[in-house]
C-alpha cells in the first residue's frame, strides 16, 4: 500500500515538472526573439499580432511595467489583507467572546469561498465610482483600489488559517505565561502568537500567492494600461491581467510572449516560496538563540513599563481589525444579495441558451456542476492519499518527502491564470481535448490538489498519536490503523477540506476562460463539449456591461451556492463531531 500512496504523492511532483516544461517550451521562443533583457526590462508593451517568428518584430514586448504593477499590487494587498487578517485572527482566537466566536469564525470560513470575480465586481461597481469622487479623472481604478480589493479578498484565507495556527498552540503555554504573572494580552502576544508563527506564516504565503496570482479581481479594477503605476489612482496593469486580456486574440510571437509572462509569474512564485522558506528557517534558529539577546538594563526597564499598555494597544488593534473584516466582508455579501436576489427569475434559472436569446444561467449551472464532480472525483483520492503518505507513511526528514512537499507548495502558489495557460497548452492542445469541460476540470484538479493535501494533512496531524499507539498495541497493521482509526477521526477535517476545495472550484474563473469557454452557450452535452462556469459567466456579463441586473443575479447565485456548501459542511462537521466526542 505504501507504493500506492507513494504514487499518489508523486503525482504532485510530476505535475510541477510538466507545468514547467509546457510553459517554458511555449514561452522561451518569445523571450529568445525579443531578448531576455529587453523582455524583462523593456518599458514598452505594444504587441503586434502581425509579428511572426521568422521576420523582424514590429511590436514592443517589454514587461517591466507589469512586473512593477504586480509587485505593487501584491505588496498593497499584503499590507491591507495580511495585517488586518493577522490581527483579526488573533482577535478570533484569543479575544473574541465565546458567544459570537462560533458565528464569526463561520462567517469567515464562508467568505473564504467567495469567488474573486465577486470581489472584482464589487470593486468595480461600488468602490471605484466612490473613490472616483476624490480623483481628478473620475475613476477610482489603480493601485489603491486593487490593494483594497485584493486585501479584502485574501482576508478570509489569512484569518482562518492564522486562527487555526494560533488555536493549535497548546493551552499549557498560555497557562504557563499567566502563572508567571503575565496579563492576558502579554501571554497572547508574547507566548501564544509567537508559538503559532509557522502556521501564521503559512497563511501569509497563501495570501501572497493568491494576491500575486489573482487575475479576475485585478483586471476589473486596475485600469489595465500597460504602464508603470505612477500614482495610487493611476491606471496600471499586472502580469496576470495582461495574460487574460490578450490571450483571446494573441498569435505567434504575441502568444508566446504571454506564455513567457506565465514563466515569469512562475519564477516569482518560486522566489516567494524560497524567501519564506529562508525566513521560517531563520525564525526557528532565532527561537533557540533568543535568550542570548542582550537588552541594556535601562531599555529593559522601559520595555517592562510599556509592555502592559502596549498589549492593551495591540488588543485594541485586534478589535479594530476584526470590526473592519466583518463590516467589509458582510457588506459585500449583503450588497450582492440585495441587488441580485430580486433579479433571479425562474426563466433565468431554467432556460437553456439559444443564440440570440436573453441571458440565462442554466447552462452555466450545469457546466459548474460537471466541473465540480469531475475535478473532485480525481482530486479527492489523490489528495487524501498524498496526505496519508506524507503524514503516516514516511519518516520526518526523508528527502523524497521534502521534494513532494516543495512540489505541493509550488502548486499551491502557482497563479490560477498560469494554470489556465498550462491547461490550454497541455490538455486542450497537446492532449487534444479541445476547449471542453474535461480540459477545464483537469486543469482545476491540479489547482485544488494542494488545498486538499494541506488540509487533510492538518486533519491527520490533529489526530492524537495515542490513537495510533492504542491501535498498534492491539496488533493492528498500519493500513488498518489509518483506515479504521486515523481517517475516521480526521473525517470532519477532511470534509471541511473537500468543501473548501469545492468552493475554490466554483469560484475560479481565470483557469477556465481559455480551457472551458468564456461566453454564453447552450448547456453542455457531455464532458467533451465546452461550457462556461458560473464565475466565468459573471465575468462575461460584467465585462459586457449590458446585463447588469443579470450580473448581480449571477453573483447572488454564486454566493448562495458557496453559502449553501458552507452550511452543509458546518452541519456535517458538527454531526460527526457529536458522534465522535462523547455523550
Amino acid at each position, binding site marked *: 500500500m505504501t507504493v500506492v500512496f507513494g504514487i499518489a504523492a508523486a503525482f504532485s511532483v510530476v505535475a510541477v515538472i510538466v507545468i514547467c516544461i509546457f510553459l517554458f517550451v511555449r514561452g522561451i521562443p518569445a523571450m529568445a526573439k525579443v531578448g531576455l533583457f529587453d523582455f524583462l526590462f523593456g518599458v514598452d508593451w505594444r504587441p503586434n499580432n502581425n509579428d511572426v517568428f521568422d521576420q523582424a518584430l514590429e511590436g514592443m514586448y517589454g514587461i517591466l511595467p507589469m512586473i512593477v504593477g504586480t509587485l505593487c499590487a501584491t505588496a498593497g494587498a499584503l499590507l491591507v489583507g495580511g495585517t488586518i487578517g493577522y490581527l483579526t485572527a488573533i482577535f478570533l482566537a484569543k479575544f473574541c467572546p465565546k458567544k459570537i466566536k462560533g458565528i464569526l469564525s463561520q462567517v469567515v470560513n464562508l467568505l473564504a469561498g467567495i469567488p474573486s470575480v465577486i470581489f472584482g465586481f464589487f470593486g468595480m461597481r461600488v468602490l471605484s465610482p466612490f473613490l472616483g469622487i476624490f480623483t481628478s479623472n473620475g475613476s477610482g481604478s489603480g493601485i489603491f483600489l486593487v490593494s483594497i480589493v485584493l486585501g479584502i479578498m485574501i482576508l478570509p484565507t489569512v484569518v482562518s488559517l492564522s486562527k487555526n495556527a494560533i488555536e493549535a498552540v497548546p493551552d499549557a503555554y498560555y497557562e504557563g505565561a499567566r502563572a508567571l504573572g503575565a496579563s492576558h494580552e502579554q501571554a497572547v502576544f508574547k507566548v501564544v502568537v509567537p508559538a503559532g508563527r509557522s502556521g501564521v506564516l503559512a497563511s501569509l504565503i497563501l495570501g501572497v500567492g493568491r494576491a500575486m496570482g489573482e487575475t479576475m479581481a485585478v483586471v476589473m479594477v486596475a485600469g489595465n494600461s500597460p504602464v508603470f503605476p505612477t500614482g495610487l489612482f493611476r491606471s496600471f496593469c499586472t502580469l496576470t491581467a495582461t495574460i487574460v486580456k490578450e490571450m483571446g486574440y494573441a498569435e505567434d510571437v504575441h502568444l508566446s510572449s504571454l506564455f513567457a509572462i506565465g514563466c515569469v509569474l512562475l519564477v516569482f512564485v518560486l522566489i516567494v516560496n524560497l524567501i519564506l522558506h529562508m525566513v521560517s528557517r531563520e525564525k526557528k534558529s532565532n527561537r533557540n538563540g533568543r535568550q542570548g539577546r542582550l537588552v541594556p538594563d535601562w531599555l529593559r526597564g522601559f520595555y517592562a513599563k510599556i509592555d502592559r499598555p502596549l498589549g492593551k494597544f495591540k488588543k485594541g488593534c485586534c478589535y479594530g481589525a476584526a470590526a473592519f473584516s466583518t463590516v467589509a466582508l458582510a457588506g459585500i455579501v449583503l450588497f450582492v444579495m440585495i441587488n441580485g436576489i430580486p433579479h433571479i427569475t425562474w426563466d433565468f434559472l431554467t432556460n437553456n441558451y439559444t443564440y440570440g436569446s436573453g441571458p440565462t444561467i442554466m447552462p452555466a449551472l450545469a457546466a459548474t456542476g460537471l466541473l465540480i464532480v469531475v475535478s473532485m472525483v480525481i482530486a479527492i483520492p489523490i489528495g487524501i492519499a498524498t496526505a496519508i503518505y506524507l503524514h503516516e507513511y514516511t519518516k520526518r526528514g526523508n528527502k523524497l518527502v521534502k521534494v513532494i512537499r516543495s512540489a505541493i507548495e509550488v502548486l499551491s502558489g502557482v497563479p490560477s491564470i498560469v494554470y489556465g495557460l498550462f491547461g490550454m497548452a497541455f490538455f486542450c492542445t497537446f492532449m487534444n481535448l479541445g476547449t471542453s469541460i474535461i480540459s477545464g476540470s483537469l486543469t482545476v484538479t491540479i489547482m485544488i490538489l494542494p488545498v486538499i493535501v494541506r488540509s487533510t494533512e492538518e486533519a491527520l496531524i490533529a489526530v*492524537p498519536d495515542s*490513537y495510533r499507539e*492504542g*491501535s498498534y*498495541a*492491539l*496488533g493492528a*497493521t498500519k493500513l488498518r490503523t489509518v483506515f479504521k*482509526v486515523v481517517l475516521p477521526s480526521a473525517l470532519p477535517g477532511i470534509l471541511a477540506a473537500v468543501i473548501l476545495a469545492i468552493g475554490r472550484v466554483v469560484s475560479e474563473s481565470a483557469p477556465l476562460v481559455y480551457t472551458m469557454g468564456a461566453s454564453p452557450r447552450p448547456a453542455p452535452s457531455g464532458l467533451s463539449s465546452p461550457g462556461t462556469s458560473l464565475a466565468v459567466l459573471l465575468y462575461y456579463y460584467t465585462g459586457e456591461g449590458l446585463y447588469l441586473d443579470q450580473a448581480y443575479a449571477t453573483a447572488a447565485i454564486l454566493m448562495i451556492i458557496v453559502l449553501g456548501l458552507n452550511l452543509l459542511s458546518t452541519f456535517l462537521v458538527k454531526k460527526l463531531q457529536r458522534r465522535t*466526542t462523547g455523550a
Partner: protein
Amino acid sequence: MSKAIQSANVSIKDVNLFYSDFQALKDINMEIPANQVTAFIGPSGCGKSTLLRCLNRMNDLIEGCKVEGTIKVGDVDIYREVEVNELRRSIGMVFQKPNPFPMSVYDNIAYGARIYGIRKRSELDEIVERTLKQSAMWEELKDRLRKSALGLSGGQQQRLCIARALAVDPKILLMDEPTSALDPISTGKIEELCAELKQTVTIVIVTHNMQQATRISDKTGFFLLGDLVEYGDTEQIFEAPRMPETERYITGRFG
C-alpha cells in the same frame, strides 16, 4: 517464520537500547514469571518505560531506536521469530493516558477482535460482554455500549482500555503508569482489577508510585539511569533492599 507465543514468562538477556547516540538501557537481564504482577520502579528517565515498550516492540515506532540483545517470551525471540503485529496481539498494552478511540464503547472493545477477522455479531457481542465483565465494567456500561467512549470518565476510560486490550486474549498485559492520570478511587479500582487479572494474564506495570508497587506486585525491578539496579520479590525489595541506591530511592531520598 512467525512462531506462536505459547507461554507468558519473559526472559530478557543482555539488552542494550539506544536512541540514536543516547544509551537508554544498559545490559538488562531479567526473568519475568508468568501469572504474576511485576512492577518496574525508578525515577523519571531511568528506562523503565523504555524497557516496557521493548516487550511489545512499541519502540519500533520511534525513529533512531536500536535494540541489542534478546528478549524471549516463552521460547520465542520477539525481535526475530515473530511478526510484530502478531506479537502485539499476544502482549497487550495500557498507556499512561487513557486513549479510547473516538468510537462507541462497543466498537472500542470489538476493534481488536475485528482485526483478527471476527465479524460475526454474536461472537463480538460475547467478547464485549466477557471482557467488560472481566474488567468489572459490565454493570456500569451495559446500557451505554453504543455511546461514544470519549464521554466516559477518566477512570472508566482507562478500564475500558484495559478491557479493549483483554478482548484479544493477550498472554501478557503491559501497563505504562496506568493510574498516573487518575483519581485515587479510580486508581483503587484498577489495582483491584490487576489482582484479579493475574489469574489469567501476566502483568508488567511501570509505576511512579511505590505504595502501588507494594500493594499489587509480586516482583519489583528498580531502575536507575538505564541500569537494572535490583530485581527481586517485592517484599524483599521494599523491606530488605540489597543495594544502597534502592534503599535511598524507596525511602524517598531522591527521585
